[in-house]
């Protein structure tokens, strides 16, 4: 069995699975919407890092980046799309299922 077949068997969403994106998605999952500063403060990511991860999530259709103007200055809010919420729920189920069958600590 090749390594790509192994990867297919474990149907983990790799977009969400990356640790930084997982943290961003988890934060967006528990709120309605948030801006960049909130996400930076709560995830510990830098501006550039956060921006690139959000772009990746946006490409996948998991987040919606809402740019608006307040007093002629740009302000960006981010929210998880319905698809993003479904993907995160599915990811949780997959991870639960993945760990549910493991033996207790120490392999007993």
């Amino acid at each position, binding site marked *: 069995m090749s390594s790509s077949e192994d990867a297919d068997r474990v149907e983990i969403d790799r977009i969400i699975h990356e640790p930084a994106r997982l943290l961003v998605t988890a934060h967006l*999952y*528990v709120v*309605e919407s948030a*801006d*960049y*500063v909130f996400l930076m*403060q709560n995830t510990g990511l830098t501006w550039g890092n956060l921006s690139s991860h959000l772009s990746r999530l946006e490409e996948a259709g998991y987040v919606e980046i809402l740019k608006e103007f307040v007093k002629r*200055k740009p*302000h960006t*809010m981010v929210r998880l799309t319905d698809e993003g919420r479904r993907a995160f729920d599915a990811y949780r189920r997959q991870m639960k299922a993945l760990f549910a069958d493991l033996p207790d600590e120490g392999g007993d």
Partner: protein
Amino acid sequence: MKASLALRDIERRAWLRTFEHGLWDIAVGLLLLLFGVSILTELYWIPAVWVPLAVPGLRDLATRLVVPRLGHVSFRRKRQRSTLRVRIILTVLAAAGLGMFLLVGWSTRAEAPMVVTWVRSHMLAVIGLVWGAALIAAGWSADYPRLYLYGTMVFGTMLGSDLGCAYDMGEALVGVGALIAGIGAVLLARFVRRYPRNPNQEVYRV
């Protein structure tokens, strides 16, 4: 990057951060302090002026100090409901205050029932109970535990006054209010040090 990935913890941590700045503590403390000052000076209109001044003032401070540091977040429906509950509790508190004034007026009449006369004779303890309970209920509803302590302090102070402790109620309220506002000021100073302004932020809003 070290953070708990329990969703409930993430949500609660984010929620509690919105109270970390101490502005609410300062507002509650100053309100009590002004009640005390109004009793000592017999200028009873002072606390009534505070509310319309404090609400826009707090909003402005939050825009300048808090949002550039913590960012803007819109919480989910459960939290929005709890904020609504706090507003209802505070409205009921204001109505209860008005009700007590009416009760005092009514209890001076000869036909007032005994229970009303009893409430009048223990007015300080009853006011303390209402204020304390309102603060504790607001703390429970907003998931903001410091309000439990403040509610207990207010009730204890008013009850002590009612039972004839050797302090004046006005002075006691000034003391409790100053203490709570002081806690808020310390929290605010710590908040400003802990969270520097973010240079990348575009624009802030509440």
